[in-house]
Structures are given as C-alpha cells and as structure tokens.
C-alpha cells in the first residue's frame, strides 16, 4: 500500500448576520479586499432547561470581485451563508507586540435577503497580494 501524504483540508461553513457595514479597500496593486464581521448564533438549552442564545463574532475577508459585490449589496444586519477557509493574520500593536488572529477567508458568500436582486459573491481562490 502506498503511503498517504497529509491532505489539505481547511473548510468552514457559517451562517450569520453582519455586525456592521463591510469595509472595502484596495491593495497597492489595485486588488479589492473587503472585511466584515459576522455574528453567528447558536441556540442551546442550559442546564436548567432554558433556551439561550450565544453569538460568536467572526471576522471574514473576501477578495477580488467578490469583495466589491459584498460591499455593494451587504449592510449591517444582512444575513449570509459563507464558505471558506481559516487564515491567520498577524500585525503589530502600537506598543510593538506581535499579535495573531484567525479569520475566515470566504470564497463563497451567499446573500439570503429576499429583496436582494444581487448575485452571490464568489471569490477566485488566489493568494492574497
């Protein structure tokens, strides 16, 4: 039997609502990048049998054409389903400390609002510039 190599698997599926309007920027090379934050809710029963809501806030980034589409059609409160992968992002604080956080790089953003005539946003899977 041949040996297996470790496969690439990094897949995330989320549904939620935007916690604020998306932010669109362009890299120096002119590539569109859009950041937004998603509130992902979960209902669960606590130990006393009461239904509770729990929200997880997740930062999402989209690139290219999808970034522009997201920025055009989504606003704070918009419901979406996204598909993508986990990515680390590193930065330095003002005090010079290194920080890392994970966020979701979305390659599919499905718009759920009925009134929207918008197409779903799909980002090509290219490396970040």
């Amino acid at each position, binding site marked *: 039997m041949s040996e297996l190599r470790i496969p690439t*698997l990094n897949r995330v599926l989320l*549904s939620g609502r935007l916690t604020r309007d998306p932010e669109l920027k362009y890299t120096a090379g002119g590539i569109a990048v859009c950041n937004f*934050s998603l509130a992902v809710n979960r209902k669960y029963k606590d130990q006393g049998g009461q239904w509770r809501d729990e929200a*997880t806030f997740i930062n999402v980034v989209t690139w290219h054409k999808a970034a522009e589409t997201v920025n055009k059609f989504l606003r704070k409160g918009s419901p979406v389903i996204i598909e993508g992968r986990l990515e*680390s992002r590193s930065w330095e604080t003002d005090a010079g400390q290194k920080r890392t956080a*994970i966020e979701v790089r979305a390659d599919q953003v499905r718009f759920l609002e009925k009134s929207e005539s918008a197409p779903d946003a799909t980002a090509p899977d290219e*490396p970040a510039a």
Partner: protein
Amino acid sequence: MPELRLAELNRVYMIGRLTKDPEVRQTTNGTPVANFTIALNRRYKNASGEWKDETTFVGVVVWQKLAELCKQYLTKGRAVLVEGKLQSHSWETEDGQKRSVLEVRADRVEFLDREGSRATGERGSGHAAAEGHAAAAEGQAAIDAQEAAASPAPGDQQMDDDLPF
C-alpha cells in the same frame, strides 16, 4: 408562504499536525478539557507561478472523554482530522485588558497516523494506533451524548493573541 428563519450553520473541517503536546486539565467540577494547536498547510502558486507554502495555526479545544483520548494518543507532530465549530474564547489579561481569540471546539478528532509512520521515541507498539482510532470514535459518541450538559469553556487559558477591535 411563511418567512424563513436563518439556518444555524457553524462547521469546520480541517486536517493538520499538532504543534506541541496537548495540554489537558480539569475544570473545577472535574470535566476534562484538552487544548492543542494544529498547523494547517496550504500550497499555492503565487502571481509569478512559483509554488509557495502557507501555514495557518488554529487552536482546538476538546471536552470530556475525547479530551482524555487526545491526551492519551496525541503528541507533537501527530496528524489529526478535526471537525467542530468556531467559537470565541475570551479572557482578561493581568492588567485587566479584555482579549478574545477564535478557536475550534472539536466534537470529532480522528487520529490519522498509522502504526508504521510513528516517530521514534513515542509510544512503541503499533497496536495503540488502531486502538486509539476506535477509542476516538467511542469518545465522539460520548461527547455527542454529553454535549447538552457541557459547561462553557472557562477562560483561564494563557494566550498572547489579541483581536484588533
């Protein structure tokens, strides 16, 4: 037609290797909880056509029986398949700052190393691998059954990450 409600969807699948041995402890009421970080590799072609490697480090938290199995069978460098959901983990630093970081709460951990591929200096017999695999499945069932009663993650984990908002 009635209005639709937003489907709850929060699912993560990933395969990676442990960056160090899992840390296992117990909550005050005796529930075992394991923490580890896995490295996810991705290979891609950059704009000039060269192959590049990119590594993402993701923190994983595991509860109950599955936590004990992870402690028993996983060490630095082991390959795992992790299935779970994203959750945020918040805590306060010593100087009172609020910090929060995303992690994956796993409800399934598959041990992927075969017996022959074990690094030297680790558990010798290949038998343990197969046993670990079966045990992991059993652990998953235990987790499913106990999930409803599971307490939320306590916030005493040491991490120096921060989110920029």
